[in-house]
């Protein structure tokens, strides 16, 4: 984990208030694992508002064309408030503070391929962010990833071409029916899991709380392990402020709280008390 001042390389408008921010952060890009995140200051001056940095998971590592070495980070930013608005209005060449990589990401190990044939990657909106690096990691282990990607409308399904280029099977849903199947992303997921009840499938989800809760329930029903990447308001990301906690259901003892920044952001969905939304 490093705290560095990094240069903004580009801010690409993806539509529907989504932006792809590219940072020249080679040193930090070398350290990143899928599902980890960075804390970004949204303005150049440290003492300016908003004071607190914002957490963003990494979408992709950009690499030098010739050597293939990590050159920077690509982060998907949705403009949802004062902080993110200032961040996406920054210009190439501007310098921001960038702290990370932080947190426990997705665990994909070589021995996993003996037990897992297929992985369902379920995203709602900007929840797509941590899944691209995960998909690549899974493919390296010969585990077949399948994408389930939902949004309000077609314009919310940003960056889907990246997954198509990997040659993945994709399932899209939109609430307004403007792209893919009309309805919730959990509907094609439920059918998919139902058809392959005997298969060894792992589920990964990132998106709105309600969506992750529904994916968790489907996974439970199919006795599948499901990892979720949670979002929380964070103060420090260092485990100091205890602001970003999520409630953990302990079947043997009292409920307790774990920090999304340290013990997460990726958790086994069975641990989570889905009745208490952290944000």
């Amino acid at each position: 984990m490093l705290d560095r001042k990094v240069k903004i390389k580009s801010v690409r408008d993806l539509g529907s208030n989504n932006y792809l921010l590219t940072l020249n952060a080679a040193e930090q890009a070398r350290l990143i694992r899928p599902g980890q995140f960075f804390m970004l200051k949204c303005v150049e001056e440290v003492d300016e508002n908003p004071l607190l940095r914002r957490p963003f998971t990494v979408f992709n590592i950009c690499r030098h064309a010739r050597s293939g070495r990590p050159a920077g980070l690509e982060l998907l930013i949705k403009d949802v408030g004062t902080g993110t608005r200032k961040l996406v209005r920054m210009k190439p060449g501007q310098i921001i503070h960038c702290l990370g990589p932080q947190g426990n990401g997705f665990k994909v190990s070589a021995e996993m391929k003996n037990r897992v044939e297929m992985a369902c990657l379920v995203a709602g909106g900007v929840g797509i962010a941590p899944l691209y690096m995960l998909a690549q990691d899974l493919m390296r282990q010969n585990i077949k990833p399948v994408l389930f990607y939902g949004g309000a409308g077609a314009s919310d399904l940003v960056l889907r071409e990246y997954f198509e280029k990997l040659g993945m099977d994709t399932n899209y849903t939109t609430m307004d029916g403007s792209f893919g199947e009309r309805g919730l992303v959990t509907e094609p997921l439920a059918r998919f899991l139902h058809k392959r009840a005997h298969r060894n499938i792992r589920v990964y989800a990132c998106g709105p709380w309600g969506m992750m809760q529904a994916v968790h329930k489907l996974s439970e029903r199919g006795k599948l392990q499901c990892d979720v990447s949670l979002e929380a308001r964070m103060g420090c990301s260092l485990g100091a402020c205890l602001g970003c906690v999520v409630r953990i259901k302990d079947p043997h003892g009292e409920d307790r709280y774990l920090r999304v920044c340290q013990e997460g952001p990726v958790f086994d969905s069975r641990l989570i008390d889905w009745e208490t939304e952290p944000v």
Partner: protein
Amino acid sequence: MQLKYIMNRKKELLKAPRMAVEIAGVRFKNPVLTASGTFGYGLEFANLMDLNSIGGIVVKGLSMKPIKGNPPPRIYETASGMLNAIGWQNIGATEFVTAKLPGLRNYETKVIVNIVGFELNDYLEVARFLNDCPGIAALELNISCPNVEKGGFHFNKNPKDTYKVTAAAKKACRKLPLWVKLSPNVTDIREFARACEDAGADAVSVINTLVGMAVDVEKRQPRLRFLTGGLSGPAIKPIALRMVWEACQAVKIPVIGVGGIARTEDALEFLIAGARAVQVGTANFYRPDASQRIALGLQEYCRSHNIEDINELVGSLHAYE
């Protein structure tokens, strides 16, 4: 050439201002500490700054047994500040002493333990326990946390209760200096500072957070599940500074300034107003090395203003004639 460099360096070192301050017989290498609840147990920041560069670390409030804390959402950012309602989540004093304190002893920075309690006896129990642990420089009695249903702030509602808990805690930790962290959510902080002094406190930390609130207008819900929270950050600095000044007028024991200190200039304001030392709080969240920068900045200020000893600055405020 090299000799000249060495001579210059020697001169520079001789000229180096004395930065150490003393609080209740404990020497701090400089007056910059980190505030409780904003710096974890200290070690979380070891990769991001030099823990040896600051005078002291006030660790997260500890109770005898672990406390799980309030349900989320617990924090919300506001203009130049933030609200928090963590609710004393901590690992418990025993775990702190076995898992964290040995690591902290590797540093020459003083460790101050903030202690919390729901009942009078909770404070006394943890004070007695920590009293015998090597590697702790002082205890800071937290009677000013606004984010718990009972205890905490309830001992800071009238000076008599403050006196009672302070006197009892002082008896429980005879070996260690006792600081008391006071609440700004009172009419006159001077009365509370005096109550602490009369009860035998060795210092007061002024101030804890101000009670605040924020509302989500879409959901028509409070931003914090606890409803209210403690406001911290640069937004509260002028209030903290005024209260530190008032406390300094009221008592002879050292006053430690806390509240919105984020830059060197902020720390200087508190020292000039009378604070013997300062604690950096919320700034640690958005600039993890804020305290180190301020410690260096103070030294630079002294050097450039020909101040030989930082203590010359303490209480040097000139009022208008």
